[in-house]
């Protein structure tokens, strides 16, 4: 599913400064698209706007062939799997119950899980290395385990697009790599992946295109080589960096200077 954002401006109620100003991007189906930027640069706002949970002040958003406004909540939940940055579970749920909530938009009126729903849940658990956690209380998980379980829930939605806000935060290197490979292979299977991350090097290695936000505006957009340039990054992050090509992966590697 193609995700198109053109000239988007978002302002939170009562705020003088816009959270996003004139942001445009075009994510082709089956691409892994990374959104980068410092804290407070508008990455999460961009995700919420694309998912329709904060309104646009101006500009337009299209999901697939249709404008965002024409999607009902339920239709969108069948097509787009979302992992927001934070989540707090109020009552004790098991991991399987939480992942099975990804099937809710697909269930019929009576809400009984069918064989297809169960298969989607099991498959998602296995792909996120969370099958052995299935019967654990969500409240007892480590931060990284919880992240994997939430990604599994998004996969269980059988979505055409995935939108994830720092899904690999607090993951160890193995699980971070596994989630990124999972997102890469999902994109290769035709799913559109919009990934918010702080990890510049991994974005460079796994993403097809990158968008760098600074103070709510697009600072750079394009391939890793186009976006991850030392002078751009130094200006946006306000810290001196070296950018070299990693001989092992062939993609840019960013090292902050001390």
């Amino acid at each position, binding site marked *: 599913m193609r995700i198109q954002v053109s000239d988007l401006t978002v302002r939170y*109620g009562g705020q003088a400064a816009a959270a996003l100003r004139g942001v445009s991007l075009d994510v082709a189906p089956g691409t892994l698209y990374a959104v980068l930027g410092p804290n407070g640069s508008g990455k999460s706002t961009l995700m*919420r706007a694309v*998912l329709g*949970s904060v309104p646009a002040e101006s500009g337009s958003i299209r999901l697939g062939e249709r404008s965002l406004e024409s999607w009902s*909540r*339920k239709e*969108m*939940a*069948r097509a*787009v799997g*979302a992992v*927001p940055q*934070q*989540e*707090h*579970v*109020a*009552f*004790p*749920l*098991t991991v*399987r*119950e*939480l992942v099975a*909530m*990804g099937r*809710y*938009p697909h*269930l019929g009126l009576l*809400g009984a899980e069918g064989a297809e729903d169960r298969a989607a849940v099991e498959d998602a658990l296995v792909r996120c290395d969370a099958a052995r956690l*299935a*019967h654990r209380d969500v409240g007892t998980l480590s931060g990284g385990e919880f992240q994997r379980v939430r990604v599994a829930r998004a996969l269980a*939605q059988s979505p055409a697009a995935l939108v994830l806000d720092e899904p690999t935060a607090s993951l160890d290197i193995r699980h971070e790599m596994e989630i990124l490979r999972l997102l890469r292979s999902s994109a290769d299977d035709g799913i559109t992946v919009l990934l918010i991350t702080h990890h510049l090097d991994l974005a460079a290695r796994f993403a097809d295109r990158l968008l760098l936000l600074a103070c709510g505006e697009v600072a750079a957009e394009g391939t890793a080589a186009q976006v991850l340039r030392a002078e751009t990054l130094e200006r946006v992050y306000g810290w001196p960096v070296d950018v070299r090509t990693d001989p092992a992966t062939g993609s840019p590697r960013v090292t902050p200077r001390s």
Partner: protein
Amino acid sequence: MTESGGRRRRTVLVSGLVVAGTLGVALLGLALGSVAIPAGEFLEVLRGRGSDMHRLLVLELRAPRVLLGLLVGGGLALAGAVFQALLRNPLAEPYILGVSGGAAAGAVTVLSLGLAAATSWHLPAAAFAGALVAIGLVFGVAISADRRLDVRVLLLSGVVVGAFFSAFIALVISVSDAPTVRSAVLWMMGSLSGATWATVGITAAYTIPAGLLLLALARPLNLMAIGEETAGYLGTEVEQTKRLAYGVASLVAAAGVAFAGVIGFVGLIIPHSVRLLVGPDHRALLPLSFVAGAGFLVLADLGARMALAPTEIPIGVITAFVGVPFFLLLLRRSLSP
């Protein structure tokens, strides 16, 4: 065996026990009272025979009382479960948002003005009107400028509106005579003694459709428990769900308060007990809370009628005396490994 499978089996088992228990309690509520009816005679009455006196006792006095108890108890427990999910707060109960304060203010006003005896409708009508005022006030405060319902504001404004009505009640009581104060205090502890077929009819016509509507919110409420933002991404119309849950659950509580006074603990203890037994899935939790609350209140009413017969104890005393130790026991057991 998987825990999910175990939980399913457990849900089925608990459901069977709760339904059977509530039916049994309802039968006991018909059979027992301060006047003893022999078992054979009681069965005759159920078949539409038996003496006129016994028929009157069972069909005109005890049956409406049992049915009102089932409806009010079920409604309170269901409303409590819904409020706990809506406010994401396990301490929530049906009265937390000021419904009981508003209702009690209405009732106490009517009692102190000496209007309660005039017709049997003044008291419930005033209580219901007071509850509606409280619901409207709280909703009006909590609905923000951009038409979103903020549940944190809902909780705070509910508590504050409740406190305001408590002060109003204290004022009215302080200028009332002793018999009025006594009836006001007894009303505020709850009683099913006012039950007639008419009150049962009104409560049923209201509670049953409202209850079905709340049961239909089970899946959205499951999602709300993991946060409003995520619930929206999983297909929930979040604002619509919050308004429906708040409005309908409040009105269910208000209808109960109007006819039975303020009966505490049912709406807190029953949903928690059921959650400890079958887990947090509202598809099981909501209907089972209704059935368990219904049975529990009829049992408590039996205690209220029988314990010091012919004197009736306020039913709220029984729900607290029975409910609190039972709840603490369950809580204790759920904490032990």
